[in-house]
């Protein structure tokens, strides 16, 4: 028992230590500030469904898109050693494709929604493949390669929409964006869980994790062991494309409309941040998807906490910045090594004292 505890204490959590500590601090801070902050109530929503409500639910719900994107971003980061800064723009394209497909039919049924979702996936995967080709085949740095789509992605979305901000209203869309009747948990949260399970299954039934890490750590060696590094990198961007489509559809369904200018604005920065807070190296290589998911929730818990403290939505960024800096400073290699040095010094002194005592 003691050894297990010690193991965890000694960094058995590894890269997850910092994000978990961050969550704990935020939780404790909120509980001190307002003991009822995390209370969950059961209420009826406008449609008359029994649903769960409360700050905790809204945090987890609001972070859904970010969590999905962070998962894909982790894979891209690991394989290519760079980040995709076009996910927001690509989500706008996917969302527009989704809406335009729904609009093309006369009625919205489960079938058409599914079809529209596949259509959105197709678009997002195609643009993912475009980014991936630039990175994997032309060996362009991911950030530069995706700068192209970042620059013009939202305009392409605008083009698909024909310059308008079309709305869609249907019970099915509402169900995707908020609650499925009879289930008290917000649908986006369920989608995140499903996506996470799919990732877990993919890692279990394929060698994606091992191959991606190998490529990210040492591409030359991976190639000499028969791994098709180009394909692995391309694949990571295509998988991120799927995540983008899911995030875009959640976001569109939440609002019931697509606004190409504002949908998932600046989400790319948050997604990269989630990956980094999750303890993953932005230089690629070893990764933990779970870290990035926790990272996404840290970001949103912070945001909601600030909102609860009456900080206006535009000012939140400044406070967020301070917390981010604190987190990365604590996690920085220099601080870490100084800390361990100090600890061993203390330990040495202790043992010295005790041996002296024995004498």
């Amino acid at each position: 028992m003691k050894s297990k505890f010690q193991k965890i204490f000694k960094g058995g959590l590894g890269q997850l230590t910092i994000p978990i500590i961050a969550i704990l601090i935020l939780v404790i801070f909120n509980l001190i500030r307002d003991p009822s902050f995390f209370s969950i109530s059961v209420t009826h929503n406008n449609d008359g469904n029994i649903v769960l409500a409360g700050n905790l639910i809204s945090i987890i719900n609001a972070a859904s898109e970010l969590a999905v994107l962070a998962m894909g971003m982790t894979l891209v980061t690991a394989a290519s050693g760079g980040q995709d800064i076009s996910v927001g723009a690509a989500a706008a394209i996917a969302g527009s494709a989704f809406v335009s497909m729904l609009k093309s039919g006369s009625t919205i049924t489960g079938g058409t929604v599914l079809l529209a979702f596949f259509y959105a996936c197709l678009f997002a995967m195609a643009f993912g493949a475009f980014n991936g080709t630039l990175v994997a085949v032309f060996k362009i740095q991911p950030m530069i390669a995706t700068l192209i789509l970042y620059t013009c992605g939202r305009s392409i979305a605008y083009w698909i929409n024909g310059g308008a901000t079309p709305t869609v209203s249907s019970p099915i869309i509402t169900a995707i964006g908020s609650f499925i009747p009879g289930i008290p948990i917000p649908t986006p949260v369920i989608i995140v869980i499903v996506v996470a399970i799919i990732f877990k299954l993919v890692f279990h039934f394929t060698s994606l994790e091992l191959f991606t890490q190998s490529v990210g750590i040492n591409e030359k060696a991976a190639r000499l062991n028969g791994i098709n590094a180009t394909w692995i990198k391309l694949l990571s961007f295509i998988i991120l494309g799927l995540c983008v489509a899911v995030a875009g559809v959640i976001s569109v369904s939440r609002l019931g409309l697509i606004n190409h200018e504002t949908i998932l604005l600046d989400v790319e920065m948050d997604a990269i941040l989630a990956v980094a807070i999750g303890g993953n190296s932005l230089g690629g290589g070893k990764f933990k998807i779970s870290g990035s998911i926790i990272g996404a929730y840290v970001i949103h818990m912070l945001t909601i906490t600030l909102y609860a403290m009456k900080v206006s939505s535009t000012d939140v960024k400044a406070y967020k910045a301070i917390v981010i800096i604190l987190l990365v400073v604590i996690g920085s290699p220099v601080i870490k090594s100084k800390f361990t040095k100090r600890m061993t010094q203390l330990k040495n002194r202790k043992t010295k004292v005790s041996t002296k005592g024995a004498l």
Partner: protein
Amino acid sequence: MKTRKEFLREPLTDTQLLMTITISIFVAMYAVAMGALQGGFLHAQQVFDMLNDNASLIIVSCGLTIVMITGGIDISVGGVTSLVVMACILYLNHGGNVFVAALLALGIGLAFGLVHGFLISYLEIQPFIVTLAGMFFARGMTTILSVNPQKVEHEGFANLRSTQIEIPWLGYTAKNGNIVPARIELGVLVAVFCLIVVFLILKFHRLGRGFYAIGGNQTSALMLGINVKRTRFLAYVFSGLLSGVSGFVLMMHTGAANATNAAGMEMNAIAASIIGGTLLTGGVGNVIGTFFGVLTLTTIKKIVVSSGLNQPWWQSITTGGMLCFFILLQSVVLSRRNKKKKAT
């Protein structure tokens, strides 16, 4: 004298090659625009307008180029610029002094640069994350200072702002027969000054060569006796300082501040640097290239507008296309070059 000849004999460096490509494409594009679209493109004022509108972008791009040469990135430049504009305008409108406002601008920029540099260089935190936080902080502070748009009401500053340099012989004759002289804003002079200073530092100062050295190979630079940490630290200080200058210049250009000031400027600056031949991997790049990168970006936009493609999406789609073209071109040129090098 022998050495100069020797320099001429050497093949182009990667930096020179990429810069040459950019400048040629810019000249070709502008020439085509002059021939095909005529209109404004025939007047010198067109070029000056491009400079007037983009003086602050040129300044931040210089800073970003330095950072990119060291192999880093600074995405806070737009945010800092916006914060400086807001802070200075509020200060001036509360009866401040123009000179102190300029110092305030430099001070804010310097402060960001110092913090970024310290965190990145001495605490070894990833530059993307640090400057992302810097951007968030600067944008957040801008709205904390004021959510509402502000306009300069300071008289002294208004005078400074309206001061323009007129060059009659580069002007043109308007329809009513009056000669309209070419006008250049003071901000452009500041931008050109910054450009020259950065160029000279990069080329002739040991600090500048240090930037290239740590971008080329950091461990080697350390072994060669370069203070890598201080050099990298100073790169971010430069970038921050130039963001401060950029903010002041932008304020002179617009005379107003709002929360979305300089939105997307960081990405434009990165795009300009890339088009100008700076590689994000570090060690390769030049501010002259960056300058032409800014001009190329602006010219594309002007051409799109002049060709009558008025729908708002065309500008960014053509910019994206152009960026794609340049990025692919560089990738192909450099990889062919490396292959050739390997073969010999």
